[in-house]
């Protein structure tokens, strides 16, 4: 067994959210620069230039890239040889969110009782935490400040197995078309296929963490990613919906086996401010 103290986890979570909100990851920047080169639409070029300029200002002046510093989503890969000491793991993560959002001048965007009073929790907790138990004696923490504009356009469907590949294409393309400018394109499109209803939604969200444009290792899935990207960019929505070639920077699909009667498909969208940061303790 290897001990990891809760205090260390709290500190890591605080730092991850603060850094994620001001530094756009390199792979995202590279993808946006590439899109800028390929664009034909003058309005789209202008939007992409502003996105790049914004990233530069955020980085230099420590101003959050976007005022929506998100729901604090945390993915854990917890080695089964790890022993958490000095408190409980999820409270340590919430404390990290509390400290990070305060120290980093990040916006607290969570409301209690979301269907009625909607009173702000004032510290951006609770974090939304997903834990995978894995072999080993390390703890990997991924912080993902998830903005609501893109999150609100999430869709889940339980297709008939007979719908197959074409059914998936129709559903994903329709989802992006309906999301239009609301989700802040250019997007990264996360798609979960298989598993159960709730599992495929988590798959779709996890797919957003993959390096932008890195294909699924399965050739058949990678081919579907390429076709979907082409179809989505043919919609013409473009950056911020002003019209253009770049509606999505990438489509990332994750697949799991499913029941003989089921074909669950989920789409979770990531806006161009694709913020996430990881650390291994």
């Amino acid at each position, binding site marked *: 067994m290897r001990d990891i103290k809760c205090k260390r986890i709290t500190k890591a979570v605080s730092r991850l959210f603060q850094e994620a909100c001001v530094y756009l990851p390199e792979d995202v920047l590279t993808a946006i620069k590439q899109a800028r080169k390929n664009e034909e639409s003058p309005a789209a070029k202008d939007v992409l230039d502003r*996105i790049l300029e914004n990233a530069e200002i955020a980085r230099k002046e420590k*101003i959050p890239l976007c*005022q929506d*510093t998100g729901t604090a989503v945390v993915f854990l890969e917890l080695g089964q040889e790890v022993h958490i000491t000095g408190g409980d793991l999820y409270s340590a993560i919430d404390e990290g969110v509390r400290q990070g959002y305060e120290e980093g001048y*990040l916006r607290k965007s969570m409301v209690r009782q979301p269907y009625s009073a909607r009173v702000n929790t*004032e510290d951006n907790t609770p974090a939304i935490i997903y834990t995978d138990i894995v072999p080993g004696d390390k703890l990997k923490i991924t912080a993902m400040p998830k903005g609501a504009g893109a999150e609100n356009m999430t869709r889940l469907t339980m297709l008939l197995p007979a719908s197959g590949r074409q059914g998936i294409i129709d559903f994903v393309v329709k989802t992006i078309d309906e999301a239009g400018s609301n989700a802040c394109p250019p997007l990264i499109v996360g798609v979960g296929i298989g598993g159960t209803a709730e599992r495929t939604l988590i798959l779709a969200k996890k797919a957003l963490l993959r390096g932008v444009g890195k294909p699924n290792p399965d050739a058949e899935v990678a081919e579907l990613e390429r076709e979907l990207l082409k179809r989505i960019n043919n919609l013409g929505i473009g950056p911020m*919906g002003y019209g253009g070639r770049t509606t999505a920077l990438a489509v990332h699909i994750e697949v799991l086996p499913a029941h003989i009667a089921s074909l669950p498909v989920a789409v979770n969208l990531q806006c161009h401010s694709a913020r996430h940061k990881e650390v291994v303790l």
Partner: protein
Amino acid sequence: MAKRVALPLTVETLKELKAGDNVLLTGVMYVARDAAHKRMVEALDQGKPPPFDIKGQTIYYMGPTPARPGRVIGSAGPTTSGRMDVYTPRLIAAGLRGMVGKGMRSPAVKDALKKYQAVYLAAVGGTGALISKSIKRSEVIAYEELGTEAICRIEVEDFPVTVINDIYGSDLYQEGKAKYRVNDS
């Protein structure tokens, strides 16, 4: 080239604005989002005046991050306008002349824009650091207890927006998409 436009917007100015135009706004706007809209419309329903005189004014749909010491405001980009659609026709009828946000509006809002002569403008979502540079003053004027959702009066200089819906019924989101759409066989 971007047109420079003074706030508050005049009826004459609105006639010059066409969907797709890039505009730099200078003057005063009011910041309000979900919770503030709910309260303003409740006030109107009860026959009470809203916290500022809406007539001729422009509302920016935004909830900033906290300002670091010595700064006017934190990150300050637009939020999704569609969530305000249920309240907006009422405010347009009360004299609201401009809105700044991002994302699509409902048919009811677009009808109100034409009927009462108002415009919907968009700022680039996800560029709150850049946009904060054109905000020169910010003060909370109402509903302070709402925190980031309080109503603020802001003074802006060359604040960059694009006209989405003009008074003539054009919609940049539909026109832009149609122009670059490729039909899949």
